[in-house]
């Protein structure tokens, strides 16, 4: 019998970091976090899970990407859903925080538009620090193919990212 309490206790923090980094929104991350663990219950009925950490982080990435896709399908544009307080280089200046939040949000939107395997491979390496070998094992492809997958992802992301005009912050210039 699987000790779910132990699974959640041991892997919950890593799953949380993964989903929150991609979603940057507590409510979405909580929903996603929960869904990851319910998904792994379903998966455990079909197969024996040997590496809980790897499978949970992979499910987390994919669920978070699914949620990003749903987010951008719903809004059809780069409306921010992010928590600016979680953005790197946090300052007390709301304008700076917003710029940082929007920059990260553009990347999220671009990730959501990637083909599924490219998005997964990119996120696993860029945000979860997986090696090419680990990605290759989990995606059941050659390590060299992982490199191509990620390069294509990065090229697409950079193009998508560049295609989006910088946000205008003129209306906030006098805030105090």
């Amino acid at each position: 019998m699987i000790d779910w309490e132990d699974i959640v206790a041991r892997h919950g923090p890593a799953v949380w970091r993964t989903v929150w980094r991609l979603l940057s929104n507590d409510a979405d991350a909580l929903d996603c976090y929960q869904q990851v663990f319910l998904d792994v219950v379903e998966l455990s009925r079909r197969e024996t899970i040997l590496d809980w950490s790897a499978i949970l982080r992979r499910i987390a990435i994919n669920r978070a990407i699914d949620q990003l896709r749903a987010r951008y399908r719903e809004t059809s544009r780069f409306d921010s859903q992010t928590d600016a307080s979680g953005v790197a280089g946090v300052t007390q200046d709301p304008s700076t925080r917003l710029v940082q939040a929007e920059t990260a949000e553009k990347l999220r939107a671009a990730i959501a538009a990637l083909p599924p395997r490219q998005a997964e491979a990119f996120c696993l390496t860029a945000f979860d620090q997986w090696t090419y070998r680990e990605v290759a094992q989990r995606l059941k492809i050659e390590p060299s193919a992982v490199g191509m997958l990620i390069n294509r992802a990065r090229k697409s992301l950079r193009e998508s990212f560049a295609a989006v005009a910088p946000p205008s912050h003129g209306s906030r210039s006098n805030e105090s």
Partner: protein
Amino acid sequence: MSIPNIPNPDSDVPRPDPFEQAVNAMNEARIPSPPDAEFNAKLVRLMQADEHQITLGWSQKLLKGAIKMKFSTKCMVVAAAALFVMFGSLIFRGGNSIALADVLAALENIRSATWTITTEIETPQGKTISRGTGISLSPGRERIETMVNNVTTTTITDYVAGKSLTLEAQSKKAISITFPAGKPDQNPGNKIEGFRQMIAAESRSTLNARDLGTKTFGDQKAIGFEFAMSVGVIQIWADSQNGLPVRIEMDAPATSKLHEILSDIKVNPPIDESLLELKIPEGYTEQKLGFTGTADPESMLIKLLEIIAKHNGSRFPDELLGESGINSYISKLVKAIDEAHEPGSEASNQAKIQLAGTAAGAIAFASSLPKESLDYWGENVLLGAKETPILRFQHAGKSRVIYADLTVKDE
């Protein structure tokens, strides 16, 4: 922090481009604390139930169903429900018509119910306790009779039609109120329906529900759950045999200091529908009131900020919610109405209806906004200041900013 193990196809670029900076920003993001042990315990219970494909109890069904609800729905439901709490607390002062709204009770298959109600409410005039009996009949109808100081007050409400009638036996006064009925899934409904909707709409918070164990009420053994929600804390005690609610308690500090208990709940008894007709008895004098403001909670918040600023020397509140927040101004605004109009007069009651509707929706909306993405900068900002943001929040999938000139923009 750089990204390891990833060859950069644009290696001739001498310094990080915006794309790389965005990747780094996400990598260096400050991640909030993971869900706490209580949340995880609930999650584990759901996982165990899923693993063994256990038939879920009603409370677990509520939890699972609640997860799918959208935040925007939550805001609308909470705002609408809270609106009537405010009507009661401001118009009738005795707390008896608290009956019109707030709190709850419920299961999806309950069509009718009877119950007794005890309400404690703290108003600017002091603490009032009222007791009464109630009838709920779906869709959206309700009758509550309360007695305060030997005066019986009956409130009959049809939430679908957007009408209510309050009859005061001693003074033979009938107050008819019209209000925005709203869409079916946004309508607070009667207490049973309202409770169900509020639970279902509380995605995150509902997951914070905790077991209260078992308790015996009379000869009925019940299991209890407590839900921390945007509008307050709700405890539900359900028959341990059939899962039907027998007692519901709610504390709602966000809109007013309210403690309400629905007890002795009887589910699906036959109901005499004539008791729910909005008909004024002979000999009563009618006073017609209506809430004519917007039913959109975001607009209600903007309107309340404007009202407060105009009352406060053009200054916005120091904080959105709290001791110096929008909620702290309600009693002052009521006092201003009482100074401008004779208390109890039609003009006074109408002004209070407008204030109550706007304030309840605004406070409930503000209380429902995700705290982690809420920024308030209104302190020391004057109404009308150009290009000066006072509030940023997430709503309906958008990042919204309200400015001091009361314009609102998407970001």
